């Protein structure tokens, strides 16, 4: 059992969300940075999609009633556990009564506190994620508050030993531009819009779990007025009439009427999600074949990570 001693402005239970349900209007939801969540879970010997605490915007404190193994991933911050430094991607052990204190997030937007055994709130429609727009899932469908208590699940057999740190090459990296594919309405835009998206430097103007609004060179959007709404996905780069792109995020609409000039690779939605307002964003176009090669490499990294953790436990 863990207790929220002091809740940061945003603290919620998230896993990998709802793999299906788009037909009901249910968004994929779940962790904004899925690779961070999966990496820390696998390091702990958990299933990759075990529910964790997603933390953003400011300081907070969690208290552990019983000895608990945990790992941090995602945004970097000044984190201390029981008074000692708590580095990311490292198996940490909280003793009974210890507190995890995060003073502030220095880099990135979303910090994951993964616990051995996961956070064991009841699943709703197959996920433990919190869908704030609909007020269900996670802990009562809401953000966590001071004094909330959360149960942890069954600890995996032979959990990795405290101190085990993941080598750099097995951690998610944020290098290079954000990779995109041409979106389904790419051909309806003039080439100048596509060229401007690739050449321009954008900045995050504002962000939420539903979408990130970008600021930069406005994109041309001729003749696209009355497109009937069609399926949208996280990473879809929509261009509303003002020409400033919006990248959809995991809680975004499942159906949208704005033209989609591009779609960010799933893996890079994680990287984009970690950009805070004001942070620069550059895009690079890939072919579908290249995107699939990256997806294969991303899955291979998670498999290599699982193998590495298995070996380290022996």
């Amino acid at each position, binding site marked *: 059992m863990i207790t929220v001693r002091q809740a940061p402005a945003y603290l919620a239970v998230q896993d990998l969300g709802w793999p299906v349900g788009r*037909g009901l209007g249910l968004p994929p939801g779940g962790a904004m940075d899925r690779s961070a969540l999966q990496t820390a879970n696998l390091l702990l010997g958990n299933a990759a999609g075990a529910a964790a605490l997603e933390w953003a915007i400011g300081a907070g404190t969690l208290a552990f009633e019983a000895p608990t193994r945990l790992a941090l991933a995602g945004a970097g911050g000044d984190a201390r556990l029981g008074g000692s430094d708590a580095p990311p991607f490292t198996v940490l052990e909280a003793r009974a009564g210890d507190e995890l204190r995060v003073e502030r997030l220095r880099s990135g937007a979303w910090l994951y506190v993964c616990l051995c055994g996961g956070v064991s709130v009841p699943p709703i429609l197959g996920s433990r994620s919190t869908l704030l727009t609909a007020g269900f899932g996670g802990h009562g469908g809401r953000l966590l508050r001071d004094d909330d208590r959360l149960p942890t699940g069954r600890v995996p057999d032979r959990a990795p030993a405290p101190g085990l740190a993941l080598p750099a090459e097995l951690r998610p990296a944020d290098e290079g531009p954000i990779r995109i594919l041409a979106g389904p309405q790419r051909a309806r835009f003039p080439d100048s819009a596509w060229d401007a998206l690739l050449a321009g430097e954008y900045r995050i103007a504002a962000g939420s779990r539903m979408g990130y609004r970008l600021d930069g060179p406005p994109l041309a959007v001729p003749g696209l007025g009355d497109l009937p709404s069609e*399926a949208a996905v996280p990473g*879809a780069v929509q261009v509303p009439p003002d020409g400033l792109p919006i990248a959809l995020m995991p809680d975004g*609409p499942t159906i949208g009427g704005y033209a989609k000039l591009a779609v*960010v690779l*799933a893996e890079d939605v994680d990287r984009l999600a970690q950009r805070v307002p004001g942070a620069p964003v550059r895009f690079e176009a890939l072919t579908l074949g290249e995107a699939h090669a990256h*997806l294969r490499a991303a899955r291979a990294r998670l498999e290599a990570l699982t193998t590495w953790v298995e070996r380290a436990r022996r």
Partner: protein
Amino acid sequence: MSRPAPAILPLGESALTIAIGDRVDPGLNAWTRAIRDAIDRASLPGVREVIAAYATVTVFYDPLAADTGHLASALGEIARGVEPPPAAAPTRLHRVPVRYDGQDLEAVAGRTGLSVQEVIARHAERTYTVYCLGFVPGFAYLGELDAALALPRREAPRRRVPAGSVAIAGRQTGVYPYETPGGWHLLGHTDLVAFDPAREPPALFAPGDAVRFEPVA
């Protein structure tokens, strides 16, 4: 009869959108659902979920479990083989009680040149079809709204539209299942719960259902 293959375009690296048409039309929408059902029945390997919108079908799949080129040809074949369905009676009719006390009722009357009573009468006199679900869980896009009530979305969307709001925009109407931001014009309110994760199925409305709004005091 052989039709040209529809355009099939990637929506990111693990979804394909099949464009059946590019307008809001009840017949096109019914055809879209028939194609969705045919793809569902085919149980193609690697396919996770198939959804129909107004005039598109989107297939979510695992590109490492299914070759995209093969999947796209299989989808094109299936889509070509589905005839536009004859106008069929909807499977279900929902009666939605509405208190017509929405914040925009007077403004809608003003902008359409109708009286408030006429706005209510025209909204409540039609039987609508659920074109698709989306935006947020359980939000049903319903059409076709009386042309006399058609207004573009509000210039500035509201930050908070109350849950249960019955609203209109363009030739469409719908019920907001949750308090969300929204740009539609609010005509009234219903107590019906459009989405409840504890219910089976969780969504009150399904694409193809018929819906009538009934004024209550």
